[in-house]
């Protein structure tokens, strides 16, 4: 790491690089303007009233944060009236213990702005203005044009500030940097960048328009990188510095006082995977991106490596090696084969488009220039509860597991129908807001003269997140195993046990917990029930679309909020041995020690569960590993083999946690001594001691695969 970057790291970690939004007084008479005119005018006045963060150590500047006085970016959604109302009424407040409203993540179309510059987008807006006749649409396009022109003016202002800073510094290197910055800001982002440096600078400044994910960095930066490298215009070391400066901005766009400052899911993007021509795209720049990141002692961004069956073992090993060295837990892995199967198969996207996905937020798939679709969290276990508490007569008279299962799928369909209906309602409300800033850089907004809040993009997937999938599978397994196969527990007894919350049935509960052939054991019984549940989900969702016409793909991740706790607290006892009020599980295959056949059996179960690829939505598989399996070099090679095989068998995703159980138990007693203990839970990483007690307990219970 260079001294310059080290200085920036210090400033970033101290929170000094955060750009506090400045207040603006608006002309009160603008109230009489038309909505789109007023909102965009205010936004533009706001932008030009901001000041860039500039210190002598920078080679880039121009990121600004919006505040709630304007209709700002689509990520934070501040000033979006209807979204704010939804937040107030539904965020963190489950409806009917079935569904909760969640945040949407997205990634802007940086590819486009790098190709045509803001100037090119303005030209597209002009062309669209000639085409559309509807007043609303014309007003929207005019607003976009105003915002585009404002961004160019903002860059000029930043250029001015850089030049002022240059005149103040004594250090000749820093002076050169700032002068180059000032000159470049006169060209970009208005024009397409000419160099790697300008390309990174363009992303840096345009990130203000949607401070969420940088999308597919290696894909759009590769042409610039290789051109400059072969021309001798930059070295590998220069490129590392630029990337690190970009990453530090991603870290510092969150206020240090926010709890999200230490959470990796806040800014997440993918590297490589398949290129449109069907080749694996991992290249030297991808490598550089990973290397640049792990050198930085920061929490954000988080990178997911897209694996393909053409990824060489050497590349995969390199990425896993970086992963094991990265104490901040910022690297995860996913399988392009499975994802592309669902994007091309279920969603019907052409291959060249399907490869243009990244993952945002915790692990939501999003296509460049688009928002993630429907993303409510759903209590899937509620369907099981309904069976045993509201339909116990039918359940008791079910003569076979098939009959019982048919009852389950009926309830499930009804619950999912309701959850989808809520989701559509959320989307209808969201679509009443008009977004100007992010829309400039999103698919379809200019071409269709439609705000991104109104489903402007063509390539989007809708991914409801079903929490408790593992509980559902385990509950069905218990019913099949004990009631129908072994006939050791009459259904009537099981119903009574659940209805009395296991009171008086403690032995039955223990027997179930001890002998249940739970998911993750790779046995015929557990696999067949699990696959049957995924088949049912496939049958239910395969032809379904949300209100904007986007295909549903099932997810299972939790994110930052404790949905699993809220849902669990109101869900009565379930056959998997869960007592009333206990949390429900999230992620795919989280087993909490119920898998007793080792890591390969666990991974086999997960990899084989969904041959239909319906569960390629926002899904995560967290695997907790004994540290010895990676610290020892011989073991590490074996671990690399295991996970490569897991992908070949069809696993979608994995991220690793390395913890010793004793550490965690001790950390709960004396958190002050374990301040640096980092764990990863469902798509994000955080300090263990920062986690709520329930999640802590969860982490402790999760199996450690110690061989």
């Amino acid at each position, binding site marked *: 790491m260079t001294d310059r970057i080290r200085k920036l790291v210090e400033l970033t970690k101290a929170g000094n690089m955060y750009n506090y939004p400045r207040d603006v007084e608006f002309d009160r008479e603008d109230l009489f303007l038309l909505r789109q005119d007023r909102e965009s005018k205010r936004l533009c006045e706001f932008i030009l009233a901001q000041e860039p963060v500039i210190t002598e150590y920078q080679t880039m500047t121009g990121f600004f944060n919006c505040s709630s006085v304007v209709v700002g970016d689509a990520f934070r959604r501040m000033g979006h009236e209807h979204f704010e109302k939804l937040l107030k009424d539904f965020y963190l407040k489950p409806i009917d213990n079935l569904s909760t409203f969640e945040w949407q993540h997205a990634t802007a179309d940086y590819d486009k702005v790098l190709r045509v510059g803001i100037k090119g987008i303005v030209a597209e807006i002009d062309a669209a203005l000639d085409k559309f006749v509807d007043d609303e649409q014309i007003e929207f396009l005019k607003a976009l044009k105003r915002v585009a022109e404002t961004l160019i003016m903002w860059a000029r202002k930043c250029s001015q500030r850089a030049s002022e800073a240059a005149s103040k510094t004594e250090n000749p290197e820093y002076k050169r940097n700032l002068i180059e910055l000032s000159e470049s800001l006169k060209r970009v982002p208005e024009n397409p960048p000419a160099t790697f440096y300008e390309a990174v600078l363009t992303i840096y400044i345009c990130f203000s328009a949607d401070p969420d994910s940088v999308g597919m960095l290696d894909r759009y930066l590769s042409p610039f990188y290789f051109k400059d490298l072969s021309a001798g215009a930059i070295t590998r070391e220069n490129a590392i510095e630029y990337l690190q400066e970009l990453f530090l901005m991603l870290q510092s766009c969150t206020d240090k006082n926010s709890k999200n400052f230490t959470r990796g899911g806040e800014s997440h993007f993918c590297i490589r995977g398949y290129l449109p021509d069907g080749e694996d795209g991992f290249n030297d720049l991808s490598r550089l991106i990973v290397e640049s990141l792990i050198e930085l002692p920061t929490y954000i961004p988080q990178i997911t490596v897209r694996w393909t069956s053409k990824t060489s073992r050497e590349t995969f090993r390199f990425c896993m090696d970086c992963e094991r060295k990265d104490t901040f837990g910022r690297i995860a892995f996913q399988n392009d084969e499975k994802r592309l199967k669902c994007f091309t198969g279920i969603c019907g996207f052409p291959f060249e488009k399907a490869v243009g996905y990244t993952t945002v937020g915790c692990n939501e798939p999003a296509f460049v220039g688009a928002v993630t679709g429907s993303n409510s969290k759903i209590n899937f276990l509620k369907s099981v509860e309904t069976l045993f508490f509201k339909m116990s007569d039918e359940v008791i008279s079910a003569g076979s597991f098939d009959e019982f299962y048919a009852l389950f799928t009926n309830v499930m369909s009804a619950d999912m129908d309701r959850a989808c209906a809520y989701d559509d309602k959320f989307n209808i409300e969201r679509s009443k807001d008009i977004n100007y800033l992010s829309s400039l850089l999103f698919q379809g907004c200019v071409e269709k003269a439609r705000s991104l809040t109104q489903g402007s993009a063509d390539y989007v997937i809708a991914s409801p997140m079903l929490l408790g999938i593992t509980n559902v599978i385990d509950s069905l397994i218990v019913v099949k195993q004990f009631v129908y196969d072994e006939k050791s527990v009459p259904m009537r007894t099981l119903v009574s046990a659940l209805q009395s919350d296991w009171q008086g049935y403690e*032995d039955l509960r*223990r027997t179930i917990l*001890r*002998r249940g052939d739970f998911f993750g054991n*790779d046995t015929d019984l557990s696999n067949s029930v699990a696959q049957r549940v995924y088949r049912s989900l496939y049958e239910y969702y395969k032809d379904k679309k949300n209100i904007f016409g986007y295909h549903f793909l099932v997810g299972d991740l939790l994110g930052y909020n404790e949905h699993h706790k809220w849902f669990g607290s109101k869900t009565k006892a379930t056959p998997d041995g869960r007592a009333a009020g206990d949390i429900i599980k999230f992620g795919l295959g989280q087993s909490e020690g119920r898998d007793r056949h080792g890591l*390969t059996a666990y991974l086999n179960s997960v990899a084989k569960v969904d041959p239909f690829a319906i569960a390629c939505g926002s899904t995560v598989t967290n695997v907790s590993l004994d540290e010895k399996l990676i610290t020892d070099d011989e073991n590490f090679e*074996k671990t690399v*083999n295991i996970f490569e095989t897991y992908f*070949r068998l069809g696993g979608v995703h994995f991220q690793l946690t390395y913890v010793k159980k004793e550490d965690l138990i001790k950390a709960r007693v004396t958190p002050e001594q374990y301040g640096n203990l980092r764990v990863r839970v469902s798509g994000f990483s955080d300090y263990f001691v920062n986690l709520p007690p329930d999640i802590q307990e969860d982490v402790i219970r999760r199996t450690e695969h110690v*061989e």
Partner: protein
Amino acid sequence: MKALIFDIQRGSYVDGPGIRTTVFFKGCNLRCKWCHNPESRSTSAQILFYKDKCISCGKCAQVCPHGLKKCTLCGKCETFCPTSARKLCGVLYTPDEIVSEILKDKPYYGNSGGVTFSGGECMLNVGFLEECLRLCKSSGVNIAVDTAGNVKWASFERVLPLTDLFLYDVKCVSPDLHVLGTGADNRLILDNLAKLSRSGAKIIVRVPLIPGFNDDEREFVKIADLLSGLNIVKVEVLPYHSMGEHKWAAAGLSPTRYRVPSASEIEKFRGFFAK
């Protein structure tokens, strides 16, 4: 054809190269005092009783057809014991059943991993083992046999053509010491090892390091001398650990306690086999 198996462990990092599935056969003809799998000794199935887990609920006595007075290994007490304090050790498997379990992890074996037949002493039931090996071989699974070597050479001759790697235990060279620690003479063991080496088999030798038994430099010099004349891929020193201790009582036996060797001791004794 059936044999008693007390465990099949998948995804093992430690029983030979690569990722392996390890099949533990019940029954052994040595009586090593430091054994960490004492439940493997007896050639018949048995009920293990973990006293510290028992909550005295009385379920086992209720369900046992003999009121726990005698045991016919029906397994009922295991099924109903709510805390796993009672465990039936030893389940009969056919070669096909074992191999279908092994094949579940075939994708993980890659070029280096495979199956390890262990125990107990898997070579005691050599006819059965041979059949398992044949099935594995025809499915393209790499085969390791983990043995203490205390069987007739004729048994080795039967498994030799089917085995890719032997994990061969050498506890010590001095015959008296061997009798003291394991209850058996080691001449047959060392003789077999020499023959195996001459046959060109691939062998990894494993030497347990047991303080108070063989933590003697002279003994290790002898072992090293012996092995230097043989064709051995690698020598592994396996330090004693006490994690198997609670199983002695569960199997109705009383353990001999040894000291767990320190890291520096382990390093020192490993040094005898440094290439």
